[in-house]
């Protein structure tokens, strides 16, 4: 069971005007049946947040991917020693271990940003960014979130449900970043034994189009057509197509911020 993924981060028109880089980043890995996605939005107020968001998303995903890699059964070796073979290691994650590994990913990501900050003799806050991570195994999903942006789960019947809503400060121009001292108290963690058909992660630039400000609900009129569309795309075109979609005047008109959307769907069983 593999994944069909369309992903893009594009620079906001407001950032082009202000001569700022695209501060959104995303990173995706598949280990066997498991999908690991991170989206990170570098804060506009931080001088090097585009680096912070890149490091944070890559490190968080890689850390979790290493764990799933370790669950793979080892290659069969020729048995020459006349003792009974060891029992095969577990290939499914233990719920507790999975949660610990996922939580640690945020510390790992933050530390990695800190190492870069120290190396460049800058402050950690100069690299401030949000971080959303989703891990989807065949039977479970884990969603972790600091700051704004949102995660939407695509259920088996292609209905959508918001798995994690944005956490703004009181005002739209205040966000709690991964780099804050008390980041772990702001980390929202959700783990559920539920099989998802797909998942969508977005930065706050895409939020106004599809997440209701008041209720946090995912807007079906947005997700349904995109899901249908992704099913029909040629696999080599998915990322470019997603980029084109975000770059349309309709999206640009609604948001002048950087925009990231990662949409992943399980391929049907052959």
């Amino acid at each position, binding site marked *: 069971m593999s994944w069909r993924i369309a992903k893009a981060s594009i620079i906001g028109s407001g950032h082009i005007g202000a001569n700022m880089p695209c501060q959104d980043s995303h990173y995706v890995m598949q280990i066997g049946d498991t999908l690991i996605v991170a989206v990170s939005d570098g804060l*506009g107020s931080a001088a090097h947040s585009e680096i912070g968001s890149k490091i944070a998303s890559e490190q968080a995903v890689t850390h979790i991917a290493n764990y799933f890699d370790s669950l793979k059964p080892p290659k069969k070796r020729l048995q020459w020693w006349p003792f009974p073979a060891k029992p095969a290691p577990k290939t499914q994650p233990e719920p507790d271990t999975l949660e610990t590994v996922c939580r640690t990913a945020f510390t790992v990501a933050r530390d990695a940003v800190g190492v870069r900050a120290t190396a460049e003799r800058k402050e950690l806050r100069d690299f401030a960014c949000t971080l959303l991570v989703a891990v989807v195994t065949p039977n479970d999903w884990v969603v972790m979130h600091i700051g704004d942006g949102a995660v939407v789960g695509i259920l088996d019947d292609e209905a959508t449900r918001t798995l994690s809503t944005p956490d703004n400060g009181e005002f*739209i121009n205040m966000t709690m970043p991964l780099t804050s001292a008390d980041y772990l108290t702001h980390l929202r963690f959700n783990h559920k034994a539920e099989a998802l058909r797909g998942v969508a992660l977005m930065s706050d630039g895409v939020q106004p189009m599809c*997440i209701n400000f008041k209720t946090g609900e995912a807007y079906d009129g*947005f997700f349904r057509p995109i899901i249908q569309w992704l099913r029909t795309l040629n696999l080599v075109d998915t990322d470019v*197509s997603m980029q084109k979609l975000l770059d349309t005047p309709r999206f640009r008109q609604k948001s002048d911020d950087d925009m990231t959307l990662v949409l992943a769907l399980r391929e049907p069983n052959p």
Partner: protein
Amino acid sequence: MTNLPDVSFDPTNPDPRCACVLVLDTSGSMYGEKIDQLNQGLVAFRDSLQTDSVAQSRVEIAIVTFGPAQLLQDFTGASQFNPPTLAASGDTPLGAALQQALDMITIRKKLYRDNGTPYYRPWVFLITDGAPTDNDAWKSAAVRIKDEESRKGIAFFSVGVEGADMEVLKQLSTRPPLPLKGYSFREMFVWLSASLGKVSQSQPGQQVPLTPPEGWTTV
């Protein structure tokens, strides 16, 4: 060329709002050229806001005047903002006017929250040329302003016109008051409009660097 999907956007999501209350001194001491210049400044404020399409849909203006303290105009979208012509008379109940402005912002924020409207930190912009006449009411207003400022609940600015008690203004907020150079209300309002415009175009998480006030104050 790939076809793009026909997506629709959640139609109930409103634009974010930036509320600004102007607290204006219309006491007797403002009579004459001061109030005339202030009125012209307000017109310039409107004209300047109308050149900015984003600010027009996001900035909301209210006016509280004092002498006596009264709500002259409730929150109005910048696109519909049409400043009333002010007349000067009466005393200077600065404290009461500030309390009223703070109350209005509290109510407005609740309304935003109830409607799911995202909002920026609201602004309170005080202009006065005198000293408070309502005893110590300004002191309790000062406590509230400092409290709100420390929680980033509002951004408070005060401008002292010639004759203003700058010592009182200093105690109102941690942000120092700005003395108005002559009667350059017009330049001041153009700056205010540009600053609100900048805030209303900012990104979430962004601290907005404002253009330093130039030409209308001596810092």
